[in-house]
């Protein structure tokens, strides 16, 4: 009995120490695809005396919804990974404490900040990719995909489950409109007639159905504008050019935001983490760790991104409020048009 009491006492003292002493810790809640080089985090800790604890909670939608369930009594201090399609929901749930970083003064506004509540960190475009070997003459536009010669060539991840799938659906809604004579539902009915394949998620589409990177036979896939450089960057043996390329039409831009969570007890550390995420070293790391582009215009792109990636000149985008108000109806109508 004595031994147990002693053990318990040691444990309690140890627990108390862990709470009080040591460097300050800032907790970052994020999705499973968040990645940052360890050296950068160490550098941040050395400069500020703040340790970063990363808490991952599954994919972006799940993490955001976990955060909303805990609104005002947060699990962490900073949330990273809110994208354009989810932004309105977090604002409605009153998730964030306003913060405007000095570092981003000149460039954050073009990506939106929801009235200073969130800070844009990176952006990425969901774009059609094609197999350059199987398809020397790719479609030039969304409209081409309904043509006979591209019959049975397109594979799309299910927009009701997959984020890139949803982004592609939004690109078509932006292009064809809701009330126009030929609206987005007509377009999808034509895609269906042209034998579009719908699979569960991006990984299945890209690694199973897509002919360039998977075992499948479909030479056109919904993926990212940064996918071709990733094919080069992660090839073994090394190659110079990817055998996939991006179709510039029909891209949808997603901006990823970070924000200080309301109720956080380390507001100051949280702000410094956001400053860090806007700083050049972090911004320059995002292309190769997360396949997205930095919002800070002073950040240099890695070589391979300059040669192979494409930043579409005029991607589609829909206002986050409009997405929030219509998402459920659009998805239901999409199911009725394409799956029923």
């Amino acid at each position, binding site marked *: 009995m004595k031994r147990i009491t002693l053990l318990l006492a040691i444990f309690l003292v140890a627990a108390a120490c862990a709470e009080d002493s040591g460097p300050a810790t800032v*907790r970052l*809640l994020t999705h*499973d*695809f968040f990645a*940052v*080089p*360890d050296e950068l985090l160490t550098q941040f800790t050395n400069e500020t005396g703040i340790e970063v*604890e*990363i*808490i*991952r*909670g*599954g*994919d972006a*939608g*799940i993490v*955001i*919804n*976990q955060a909303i*369930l*805990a609104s005002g009594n947060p*699990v*962490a201090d900073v949330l990273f990974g809110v994208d354009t399609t989810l932004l309105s*929901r977090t604002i409605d749930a009153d998730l964030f404490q306003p913060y405007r970083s000095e570092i981003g003064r000149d460039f954050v506004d073009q990506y939106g900040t929801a009235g200073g509540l969130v800070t844009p960190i990176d952006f990425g475009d969901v774009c059609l990719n094609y197999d350059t070997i199987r398809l020397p003459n790719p479609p030039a536009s969304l409209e081409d995909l309904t043509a006979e010669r591209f019959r049975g060539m397109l594979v799309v991840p*299910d927009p*009701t*489950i997959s984020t890139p799938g*949803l982004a592609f659906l939004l690109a078509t809604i932006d292009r064809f409109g809701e009330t126009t004579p030929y609206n987005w539902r007509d377009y999808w009915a034509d895609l269906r007639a042209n034998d579009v394949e*719908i*699979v*569960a*998620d991006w*990984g*299945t589409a890209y*690694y*199973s*159905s897509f002919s360039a*990177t998977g*075992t*499948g*036979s*479909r030479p056109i896939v919904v*993926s990212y504008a*940064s*996918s071709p450089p*990733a*094919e080069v*960057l*992660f*090839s*073994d*043996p090394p190659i110079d050019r990817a055998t996939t390329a991006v179709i510039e039409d029909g891209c949808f831009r997603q901006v990823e935001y970070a924000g200080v969570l309301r109720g956080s007890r380390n507001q100051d550390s949280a702000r410094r983490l956001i400053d860090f995420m806007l700083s050049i070293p972090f911004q320059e*790391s995002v292309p*190769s*760790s997360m*396949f997205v582009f930095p919002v800070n215009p002073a950040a240099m792109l890695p070589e391979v991104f300059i040669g192979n990636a494409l930043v579409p000149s005029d991607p589609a985008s829909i206002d986050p409020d409009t997405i929030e108000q219509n*998402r*459920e109806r659009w*998805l239901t109508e999409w199911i009725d048009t394409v*799956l029923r």
Partner: protein
Amino acid sequence: MTPRRSSALLALPAVVLGIVFFAWPMVSIIATGLSADPGRIASILGKGTTLSTVWFTLWQAVASTILTLLVGIPAAYAFSRFRFPGRALARVLVTIPFVLPTVVVAIAFLALIGPGGVLGVDLAGTVWAILAAHVFFNLAVVIRTVGSLWSHLDPRLEEAAASLGAKPWTVFRTITLPLLRPSIAAAGAIVFLFSFTSFGIVLLLGAPHLTTIEVEIYRSAALVFDLPAAAVLALIQVVGVTTGLIIYARHQERSGIGQHLLPAVATAQRPVGRQRWLVAAAVGMPLAISVIPIAVIVWRVLTAGGGVGLGSLRAIEAVDPSVVNVASAIGNSLQFGVIACTLTLMVALPAAVVIASRRGPMGRWLDTLLMLPIGSSAVTLGFGFVVALDAPVDLRAWWGLVPIAHTLVAMPFVIRSTVPVIRSIGPRLREAAAVLGATPGRVWRTIDLPMLTPAAAGAAALAFVISLGEFGATLFVARPGGKTMTLAIFSLFGRPGPTNLSAAFALSLLLIVVTGAVVALLERTRAPGVGSF
């Protein structure tokens, strides 16, 4: 203190764990969802898609269970009644699928029976792909659970019936089947639970048309954040699972037959004549089902990056640690595995003692209730943690939630494999020790513990392997620090680039090898006495 009372207290850790980390979060999140918009409950229930989803979930689970039993029972017979070359290896091979991450299995199945698949039929998006994957996953449950009881049945009963003129089929129907019924029901219940709440398989192989309740919960919770809909569906699922478990417990109560069990060695024999063909067929079928998809994964590893060879294993090193830290994922998995395994033993063994000592309804109900977590929605439980575990101590982002979730999943298996052993320890030995003046603690230490050790070791290995392969619950818990191996595989599959894909397959192979090794070890240390699973 009477022995009965002290024995009930032993179940306390398991019950507390179940209440704090399962029942309370589940009740909280369902209550939050239902109270958010009570007016919508009726409309969600009455929706045509809800009804068709529930119906599909139910019938595919029943079909998966029946198919798994049909393939598994003959195999259980062959494995338990015959000795043949390669038996141990075959047992290891049919067990591996049970712990593979669903993402890997889905990719392997798509390569086999997807568009442009090796077998030449495209079954992707059909119920056939789902059923095949469920059989693949759950065969081990049937073979091991039914097989272990079968290997201890007294063959003299059957021989007596045969000598009285009963045909083999009659002997099976009137003697063997009734004796096996408890283990068939137990295996069937677990397979049903897994298939009923199947998530990854249905999501990846059933898309876009087929969805189960669990997939719909994910859809409502992840993208639309329709919490009321998710709560209603989660409630339907809990009610469905509980009903299933109650039927199962009732059935177990009625069908329990006292019987004389024999050591396995005494009952196994070499197949002769026509038996050889029967054994080959009974073992060959599940072996093919298990090995072919695993072979696809191995083949992908060997041929990744052009040539044939183990070169692609280098892909593991080539993955940028800032993208996915593979080394830390392996470390985390092992660490969580050890913790989950220790915790499971500490909590499940005392509970098993209670269940074993109470042959009446109380033991069975406890046993049944502890099965609930494996039949519940992982997404819902993940959200439940966020709602429920903030006070008095904020545990929402505590690293310990992951091994605790693994423990909840592993517990029913450990209980199933140790209860029969505890029951087989003759009370007379204990009485003799007590008469000679040993205290109850000493009796337990000197009689029960040594007899229990082999089964406990097997149970520990099983808990470790379950923790290693767990995916759903891990994915939806807020985790500080690193990923586990299954999550790293999932993450790598979500990124473009050939080395990421190679690394995902290589990591899967590593998981297969580790699992195979642990299962092989489990085979070696298998209790000579009775042991389920």
